[in-house]
Structure formats: structure tokens, C-alpha cells
């Protein structure tokens, strides 16, 4: 695709972002609402010199990714919530092996089969590691088709930079909707050379390369853990990303990601017309989470309350509450079951919060 500005679906834009980043391997399994990703990949990845495999399961897909990444390729898989649960085993192994890869989650409603409506119930899973053991995955949360492409592109960069899996935490709305995408900031790049550690057929005259996750002796494991902890600390310092909207003079700060953050912008515009001084803070990386900037807002005298809007039962709000540390009331405005927000859904509770910043209807109380 040579055009720089294209009208396309979120899931397809993600694939284009991957191609531009030099993605040469994709393995995946059909699940709604991300089916456009394997479909688009199966059609186009060959033109970019890559390989597509429709795997027998999500478990197999993530392990194929592990092999492809170990062999030196930029590799990606995508799925939606139930499929991502299956991938968690592999993500744990990939994180421990310190292999780079990109995993996209077009989140649908759970738990269980749930439904195929957009949801944000996988926030904990994405930001706390998700599989067994202690690890983190760099997690980017797009809120537009443009960002689907851009964040997949960026995820490849970050995954290679830190040799760690990077997640793109999207939702059904962003994956399915169509918008114009500008690719001018995403030039095609050659993936970095990994021959100093990858598994390849050119072993003559070099030490063999070994990728393993098993260290039976605690004395051997402890330094590995220490190295990983230090890596995660460095990622936290270097990679926090967020954006804000009308937050400079905001008295009530909305924190939202994904499709609710788009609704929040409409709510802020409408709210300001009726005199509500609203602003938005949108984390772009949800791990590492922008605790620092939220703490600054919480410490400002101007801000009266912080409102978190999520399409789940309350997940990111815990991170926000941790950042706020009791300095200001934190309110939680949810949507359940795969229903989506309207601006009014946000404005109504916000009006009550302005009347009473401690309004018990929405106040988030840690139990």
C-alpha cells in the first residue's frame, strides 16, 4: 500500500502499521471482533516477505510467535479476550525468555464467552502480566484507527528496544470502526539485526545461542529476576506516555482510555457549554501507567475530583486511586455488559459530583 492517507478499519490499520514496522510473521486464530486482522494478514503479509499461519489454537499461535521471535523476526499475533487468556501461557514464557513480540487484544466483553461487544475487562490482565509468574508487558491503549496503526508500529519498536512482549490493548469499537489513517509518520523500516542472540543456521564460529526460562536453583534464578526487575524499572522511567485534553483549567479530571476516551471528549465539550470545567487525561501506556502526572493533578488545588470512566467493573480506577493516594475523591463511572457510553452517561454523574465531590453514588471506595 503506497497511499499515505487511507480510509480503513481499525483492525486493518493495525496490520498496515505492522507491515511498516517490518513484521515478518503473524500467527493467529479467528475470534470476533478481531477477524479482520488474520484476514488482512493472510492476504498481504506475503507481499512484505512475511509468513502467515492460521494456527490450531491461540496457544499454538503465541508459541509460534515465540519461535519466530527467537529466530529473529518481528512477529505479531492478535486476538480478543478469551483468546488472549489462552495466549497468557506463552506470553509468560516470552517475557521470561526476553523475546520481543507484539500481541494485540481487541477486547470484547467477558468473563467467559461473554459477548462480542466492546469492553475493557482485560485491563488487569494486560497491565499486571496476565500469565503466571512476575513480569510486565508494555501496554499501549489506542483510541482511534490512526492510533491502531501507530501503536502497533510503536509496539514493535518498544518490544525490540526492551526485548519484552508489547501489547496493544484496543477494544471492539476501535477495531471495527473506519477512519482515515495518515501513514506519513510510519515509514517502512528494516527490522533490527538480531544475529547476536537469535537462533539461526549460521552457528559456525560462534558460541551457541540458548533461550531458556528454567533456572532450577533459586540462587541461579534470583539474579535473573533482579535483572528483569531493573529492566522494568527502567521501562517505567522511560516509556510512560499520555495525552490530555482541556485539562489545564479543569476542576474535574476525567481519566479514560480507548473508546470511552472519545466519548469523554464530547462530554467535556458539552459540559463546558453548561459551565462544567472538565478535562481529560488519557494514558497511552497503561503499563507503565502515568501515576506521576495523575498525582500532580490530584495535588493541584484547582482539581476538585477525578472521574474514571471504564467499560468494566472498575479496573484502571485502582491505578488512578493509587496515584491519587486519597488526596482527592476518585469517582468511578462504569458501563457494563458491552453497552457503550453516551456523553450524557458521563455528564449526569459529573453534575452530581460537582454538587458534592464526595457523592457516595459514584465514589470509588477501596474495599
Amino acid at each position: 500500500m503506497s497511499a499515505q492517507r487511507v480510509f480503513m478499519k481499525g483492525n486493518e490499520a493495525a496490520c498496515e502499521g505492522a507491515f511498516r514496522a517490518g513484521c515478518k510473521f503473524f500467527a493467529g486464530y479467528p475470534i470476533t471482533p478481531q477477524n479482520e486482522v488474520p484476514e488482512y494478514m493472510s492476504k498481504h503479509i506475503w507481499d512484505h516477505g512475511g509468513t502467515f499461519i492460521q494456527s490450531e489454537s491461540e496457544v499454538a499461535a503465541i508459541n509460534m510467535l515465540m519461535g519466530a521471535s527467537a529466530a529473529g523476526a518481528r512477529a505479531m499475533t492478535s486476538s480478543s479476550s478469551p483468546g488472549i487468556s489462552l495466549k497468557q501461557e506463552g506470553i509468560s514464557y516470552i517475557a521470561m525468555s526476553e523475546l520481543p513480540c507484539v500481541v494485540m487484544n481487541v477486547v470484547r466483553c467477558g468473563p467467559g464467552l461473554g459477548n462480542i461487544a466492546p469492553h475493557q475487562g482485560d485491563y488487569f490482565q494486560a497491565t499486571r502480566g496476565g500469565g503466571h509468574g512476575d513480569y510486565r508487558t508494555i501496554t499501549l491503549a489506542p483510541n482511534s484507527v490512526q492510533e491502531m496503526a501507530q501503536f502497533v508500529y510503536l509496539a514493535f519498536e518498544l518490544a525490540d528496544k526492551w526485548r519484552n512482549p508489547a501489547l496493544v490493548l484496543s477494544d471492539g469499537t476501535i477495531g471495527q470502526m473506519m477512519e482515515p489513517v495518515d501513514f506519513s509518520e510510519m515509514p517502512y523500516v528494516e527490522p533490527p539485526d538480531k544475529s547476536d542472540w537469535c537462533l539461526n543456521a549460521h552457528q559456525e564460529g560462534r558460541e551457541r545461542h540458548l533461550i531458556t526460562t528454567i533456572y532450577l536453583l533459586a540462587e541461579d534464578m534470583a539474579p535473573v529476576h533482579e535483572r528483569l526487575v531493573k529492566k522494568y524499572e527502567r521501562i517505567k522511567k522511560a516509556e510512560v506516555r499520555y495525552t490530555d485534553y482541556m485539562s489545564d483549567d479543569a476542576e474535574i479530571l476525567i481519566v479514560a482510555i480507548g473508546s470511552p476516551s472519545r466519548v469523554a471528549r464530547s462530554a467535556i465539550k458539552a459540559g463546558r457549554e453548561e459551565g462544567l470545567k472538565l478535562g481529560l487525561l488519557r494514558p497511552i501506556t497503561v503499563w507503565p501507567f502515568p501515576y506521576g502526572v495523575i498525582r500532580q493533578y490530584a495535588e493541584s488545588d484547582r482539581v476538585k475530583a477525578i472521574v474514571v470512566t471504564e467499560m468494566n467493573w472498575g479496573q484502571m480506577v485502582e491505578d488512578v486511586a493509587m496515584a491519587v493516594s486519597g488526596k482527592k475523591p476518585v469517582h468511578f463511572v462504569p458501563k457494563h455488559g458491552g453497552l457503550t457510553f453516551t456523553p450524557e452517561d458521563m455528564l449526569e454523574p459529573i453534575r452530581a459530583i460537582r454538587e458534592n465531590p464526595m457523592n457516595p453514588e459514584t465514589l470509588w471506595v477501596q474495599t
Partner: protein
Amino acid sequence: MEAVPEKKRVTVDGQDYELVFGRPASLTSKPFTYCPGCNHGTIHRLVAEVIDELGIQHRCVGMASVGCSVFSYEFFDFDFISCAHGRALAVATGVKRVQPDTVVLSYQGDGDLAAIGTAETIHAANRGERITTIFVNNAIYGMTGGQMAPTTIIGQRTTTTPEGRDEHRIGWPIRMSEMLALLPGVAFVARTTCHDAKSILKTKVAIKKAFRAQLEDRGFSMVEILSNCNVNWRMTPQDAVNWVGEEMTKVFPPGTYKDVFAEDQEKARADAPSKTKAQSSEKTEV
């Protein structure tokens, strides 16, 4: 433990001798950590010998599975990756597709290949992935202390079948070689044993054919090797290898279940008379 260095030639009382059996170059110098009498060591050596003979050591990438062979990468001297339980063939698929010049070896036990990794096994075989699998079948879970394996035979006592495996409760031992032989993507699949010198030599021949299938781009290849777990079978090593030869082979008959090379030969033989016919008809035309 440091190994005594190998001398290719020695002189004893004025007589020259040359080394005719030593450690293959594709093995590291680390002594095996398997139990006394365990055939993992035998099979490691055979695989390494074949790799040496084919001259592919520096192209090989190994997949270490989960089970007793989890540390197989400490003994094979080429690139290796340790995989999650059952997922070796999925990882192998990723490696081979990205680096088609590698020779990919997956080394798996019965729990890994025939229980938790059955789907990965069947589908990698069905895709005809150019991968060689060494499947070590010892009818038990050795690493975890002797629980029932998918290949545990009827009546065999394990820590989870204390009364012996009862097919009405838990089904029958699974025959992977026979199953995989049905798939068109499979180029070579054979079952061999390791219970005596003769069978060990036959195993080596099969392993070589399996690698040949990969090197000649023919498809998926696997050698299922009946092995012993004398410790968890509660037998002496000699009794255990005898049990492999006498009892296990009844349930898992050794043999070649799929062999594209033999099929080629048969085809050539079948084609041969028709060719002569064609030639003769040509002649008559002339």
C-alpha cells in the same frame, strides 16, 4: 564433572589403537544427568551421531520440551530454546518458517507430545512442517515422579493408576505413530526401541531417515522411540529394557509407518516396467 579428554590414537605396548567409539561432536562435554540406565542418554547420543554424520551441527536448532528432557539443551551442542509443556512443535514451526535453512529438532516425551501437546503435534504434522521430532515414549511421567502417561499400557501401575491402568476408567494407551502416519503432511514416521544393541542401531537408521526427510524438504518426520524408566517402573535397568522389548513392543509394535523414501522406490519400481513398455512402443514406431 570434567570429562577425561578424548584421544583419537593411543599406543599400548607398542601397538597402535584408534578410537572407534567416542563422544559425538554434537554433544557438549557435560555428562548426562539422567538416572542410571535411562535411555534418554542413548537417544541423545544417536541424535548427535546422526547430526555429526550429516554435517548439520551448525544449522541445528533444538526445541527442549518439558519433562525429563527439559535440560536436553545442556547436552546438545547447538542453538536451543526451551519451550512450554507440549508447545515444542508450535515453537519449532515459528523458528523453521522464519529461518528455513535451520534444521529443526524437537525432542519430546510422551506427556509433552501425546497429552498436553497433542494438538500442536497433530497440526504441525498435518501442515507438513519441515521439522524432525524425536518422541521418547517410556509409558510414564518420569520427571514428576511416575504418574500415568497417555502411553501407559493397560494394567501398568503408576502413582495415579495404583491398581494398574484400567481402560474403562481412563482409556487406552495412545499410538501416535499410527495416528500421524495417516496425515499427508508426514514424510517419515517410525517406531523403534532402545532395549538392545540391535534395536539401538535400527533406531539410529530411523533417526537419520527422519532428518533426511527434513533436509530434502519432504515434510514432517518423527521417530517414536520406546524407552525405559526403570526408576519409576521400580525395576533394575536390565529388567526395564527387557520389559520394553517384551511387553511394550506388544502394545507399540516397532515398524516404519510412513516412509516417503520407500514410497519413492516402490513408485520407481512400478514405473519401471511401463517405462520399458513405452520405450519398446517407441521402438516399434521407429
